[in-house]
């Protein structure tokens, strides 16, 4: 793949990224020749199942992959034009929490349990900006207010907050230095649905207010539909489809993406018919297939699919797919006549 877009300088561009974990049972190819691009001010969803490489990609961007066993074996991560992989550790430290910050799934493990929450935010602010202790503390209270936490609770410790409130604190920490890029890794997965709704509303509101670009990692297509501008579908360590949200939902082109959509029970559908499932399981990451990583499970696979990976191509304007035989219209009609559609 040359480039995904032609116009504009992207905020983030990942080229041919590969990450491996060296384990006792073999080399795990967690991210395998991944390409992605994120424009300023956009929210990109990373969607995929466990082990697809979503979190590893995010950690690679921040260079927080534990090594050993992890290792970035190739590629470039261009952020605001600079290759993050070429920076010194010290330069990288100033980027983390400053220009790029991350929200993790479990709010309890990303907060310091023995420090009041306002101090945790102030600490972050002082690390990245030349401000006095009082200014930092004022900023902390302001951030907490923005995420809906009253100033009189600013001095409380993490354990004094509920799960949803803790995730608000984490969001406040992440946004304290107005990052250009926020990476949110399953930010609402640990929360109940009514609390998730509160946090999603907050994220949407903050998107408008702060205009931070965002990578949202999730396995929940409902959250993607609500928050994202663009979606990257990940499978077995690489992006298999990448498109703006509407085309992706209206017409997924990769057989895996379509299978993923069909596997989710649809809350707006009254049917109780059997769910159409993708047979089998994702490939062993220590022994990925030679050709397309989805070929062993794909009902449309032909000889070429087992031989060589296709690589990303622009099947429709702005809609990229790593498949020799994307699900274009005539093919859809064919599938229907064969009774393949649900």
């Amino acid at each position, binding site marked *: 793949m040359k480039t995904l877009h032609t116009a504009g300088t992207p905020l983030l561009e990942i080229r041919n990224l590969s990450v491996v974990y060296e384990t006792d049972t073999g080399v795990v190819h967690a991210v395998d020749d991944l390409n992605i691009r994120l424009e300023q001010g956009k929210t990109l969803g990373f969607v995929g199942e466990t082990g697809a490489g979503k979190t590893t990609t995010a950690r690679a961007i921040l260079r927080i992959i534990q090594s050993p066993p992890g290792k970035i074996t190739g590629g470039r991560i261009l952020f605001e034009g600079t290759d993050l992989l070429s920076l010194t550790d010290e330069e990288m430290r100033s980027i983390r929490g400053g220009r790029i910050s991350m929200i993790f799934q479990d709010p309890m493990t990303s907060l310091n349990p023995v420090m009041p929450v306002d101090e945790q935010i102030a600490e972050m602010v002082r690390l990245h900006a030349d401000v006095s202790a009082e200014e930092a503390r004022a900023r902390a209270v302001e951030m907490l207010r923005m995420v809906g936490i009253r100033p009189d609770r600013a001095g409380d410790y993490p354990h004094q907050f509920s799960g949803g409130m803790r995730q608000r604190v984490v969001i406040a920490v992440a946004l304290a230095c107005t990052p250009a890029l926020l990476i949110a890794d399953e930010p609402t997965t640990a929360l*109940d649905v009514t609390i998730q709704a509160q946090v999603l509303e907050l994220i949407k509101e903050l998107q408008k207010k702060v205009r931070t670009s965002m990578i949202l990692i999730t396995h929940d297509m409902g959250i993607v539909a609500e928050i994202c501008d663009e979606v990257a579908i990940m499978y077995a360590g690489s992006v298999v489809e990448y498109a703006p949200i509407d085309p992706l939902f209206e017409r997924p082109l990769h057989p895996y993406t379509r299978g*993923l959509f069909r596997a989710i029970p*649809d809350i707006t559908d009254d049917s109780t018919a059997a769910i159409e499932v993708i047979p089998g399981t994702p490939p062993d990451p220590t022994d990925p297939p030679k050709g397309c990583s989805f070929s062993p499970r794909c009902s449309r696979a032909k000889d070429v699919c087992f031989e060589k990976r296709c690589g990303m191509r622009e099947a429709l304007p702005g809609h990229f797919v790593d498949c020799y035989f994307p699900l274009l219209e005539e093919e859809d009609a064919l599938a229907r006549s064969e009774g393949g559609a649900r």
Partner: protein
Amino acid sequence: MSGNGTNRPILEVNGLRKYFNVKSGVLHAVDGVDLHIGKGETLGLVGESGCGKSTLGRVVIGLVDATEGEILFDGRNTLAFDKREKAAFRRRAQIVFQDPYSSLNPRMSVSQLIAEPLDINRACASRREMDKKVAELMDTVGIAGRLAGAYPHELDGGRRQRVGVARALALDPEFIVLDEPVSALDVCIQAQILNLLGELKRRDGYTYLFISHDLSVVKYVSDRIAVMYLGKIVETADRLDLFKTPQHPYTQALLSAAPIAKRGAARERIVLEGDVPSPISPPPGCRFQGRCRYRKDVCRSETPELRPVGANGHAAACHFAGELGA
């Protein structure tokens, strides 16, 4: 997975309570629950963490003792069973747990895990009969025979959950509590397990109590649905009625909060303020009143009972159910 059961309930629960003594008071996990499940029916039990749904599931099959109330299984009160009757009941009522990672003994192989309930209950006359039964069960839940000697850590989440289902089926039960059986699984694996549970039910007519926090899954699998909040059932209805005309303000908020995996599906979302209050020494009145946008004085003083609000047994525990816009 639907296919309505007969009207005769296989399970009927009346005034069931389960309290736990904790350091700071008494935790009202299940606080006055009435419900019934018809033979061959799937009742979906939905609610958020801490609402008492798992405790309720465990109490009804006798894994946890009830504090108060009545559990009628096939018309007989299980709480009055003697030791022998209890053992017989436990064979007829089984459970599948959420986490296939922690509910399987890591030191037992697949075949040992599936044989364990057979062995404990001396359900097979000979070793050969047991091996045959284990092989049958593996086939039923779709685990390849070559995996008989594999250990849990060698299996992916979906296969582990299949082992959990095989264990529950081993003693030919009639009633199975499924406690978040697909919550720990990826969507493709989740779909495989949901299909398996549906096939089993069609084939063998099991009755399910399907506990989940996932509304789309509950809608898909259930014949009827009960919504639980802080130890109480706040609404119960046929699956489609519940989604079409939710009557309790909590149900309305819950349904509106679920993200929909479709574009242009956005609807007005009722965002509830605050969190679920503590189930330890809960205040009198309606459990939901602190977060309810319709609350009036009576909600603080009087606890609303579950009462009929529509056809097909639709009931809601709200003083103003039927008067609120759905």
